[in-house]
């Protein structure tokens, strides 16, 4: 009785190993089912998801105008102090003084891509870009100014 049980055990064990080996051989011979992406080589064809949160950017139109009113909602919403809004005084055509943004400083090194600033913005001035290759040689390059130099606020955005 012991011998029969022993042989059965051995048979069961060898069978279980062969079943697993069969699965491995299946993938060895079916190359089409391999789904690995060869990342640095497929850079030209790589398409990121449209909602992918890579970094915060401020879109400008062709006249170099943005939609940021400088309300600081993004600065308040940010948990890490990633965004700083710096103001300047501008003269309107009527000669009145008007507050406008000078720089919108964005610290990429502090950002966790939580999307709270984009959600908080009432005028859709900032959005998330799909870039993800952020490595640079010096830390200071990660501090970015989002508005282009010489840019103005778009007409009709309050």
């Amino acid at each position, binding site marked *: 009785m012991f011998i029969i049980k022993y042989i059965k055990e051995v048979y069961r064990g060898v069978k279980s190993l062969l079943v697993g080996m069969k699965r491995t051989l299946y993938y060895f011979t079916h190359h089409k089912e391999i789904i690995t992406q060869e990342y640095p080589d497929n850079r030209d064809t790589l398409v990121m*998801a449209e*909602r992918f949160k890579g970094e915060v950017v401020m879109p400008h139109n062709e006249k170099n105008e943005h939609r940021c009113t400088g309300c600081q909602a993004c600065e308040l*919403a940010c948990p890490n102090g990633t965004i700083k809004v710096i103001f300047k005084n501008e003269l309107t055509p009527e000669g009145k003084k008007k507050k406008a943004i000078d720089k919108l400083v964005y610290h990429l090194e502090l950002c966790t891509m939580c999307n709270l600033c984009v959600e908080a913005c009432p005028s859709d001035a900032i959005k998330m870009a799909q870039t993800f290759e952020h490595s640079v040689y010096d830390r200071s390059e990660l501090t970015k100014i989002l508005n282009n130099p010489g840019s103005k606020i778009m007409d009709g955005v309050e």
Partner: protein
Amino acid sequence: MFEEVGTTTEGDIIINVGPQHPATHGVLHLVITLNGETIKKVEPHLGFIHRSIEKMCESLTYRQFIYVTSRMDYLSSHINNHACALCVEKGLQVEVPPRAQVIRVLMDELTRIASHELWWGAMAMDLGAFTPFFHAFRERESINDIMEETCGARLTMNYMVPGGVMQDLHPDFQKRVKEFLQLYKRKIHEYDELVTGNIIFQNRMKGIGYLSPEDAVSYGCSGPAARGSGVSCDIRKVYPYEIYDKLEFDEVLETAGDSFARYMIRLREMQQSIRIIEQLIDNIPDGDFQAKTKAVLKLPKGEFYQRVETARGELGVYIVSEGGTTPYRIKFRSPGFSNLSVLDHIARGSKLGDLVAMMGTLDLVIPDIDR
């Protein structure tokens, strides 16, 4: 006779596993007292990845603190965020729209499958099988793609906000999830062929690390670690939140209490999550995905507690509010901490080689234990 097992005597060897060791899945330091090859004592040392998340949360507003909790149990970050959002909603008395509830449950269950798949691959790798890791990541990858499309991130999503979810579902979401379900059903038998039926794997798992139901309760174990011993503790069944009480699914229970039982629990739990997703994917109600809340959230004075079932067990969020915009105190009851504390108990008297199998089936995520 009473035998003193916890003390060091002459001839004992003390070895350190970690803090940097592939088998500990993170920066966990185990001080193991050995007598020959038999384990006399296991002492986990924590603190290597302590980021004081609870203290950080005290300086963040109720909208902001949710993103930090993704960094605790990073494999079930959706469920962590869900727990925090639910706790804040409890304080605000906000009614979450039905669409948001369904989206939340769908995301939770997808996260649970992704988490268990990674665990399955890592578990097999702990025991020396390297290929299953890639098989597990193949299915997990399609879940990550679904998450990336809808939430915008693959691991730390920050998709749940108080009152609902941050963005509406992507138009392709239903199609992609159905594709995933088909892929999963086509590939699920491979899990059994490669690992579960394997005789070497079974011999290394069966009867190893026995945890009795009494000990599971007294150590505060939860999740698959306790359900492997037959303790019914699924928060989705016991204290249903969101729409879990209207869904049809079984609480998976095994009674053996060994490592293999805990392994089987997770495999069967994935099937139940698939069942939940199948019920919901065609029945997502129309409507708002977010309730209207004030721009600045203020919780009334008081204490609020909410628990949810993560992939690892019971996660509790306890908020003490003084009526301001930031919490006065936040405490997280993490499942991993209690599950780790039982390791010393189940490891005593077994061999050193089996320790990895026991640790693997407890499914420890160290940033969750240390916070």
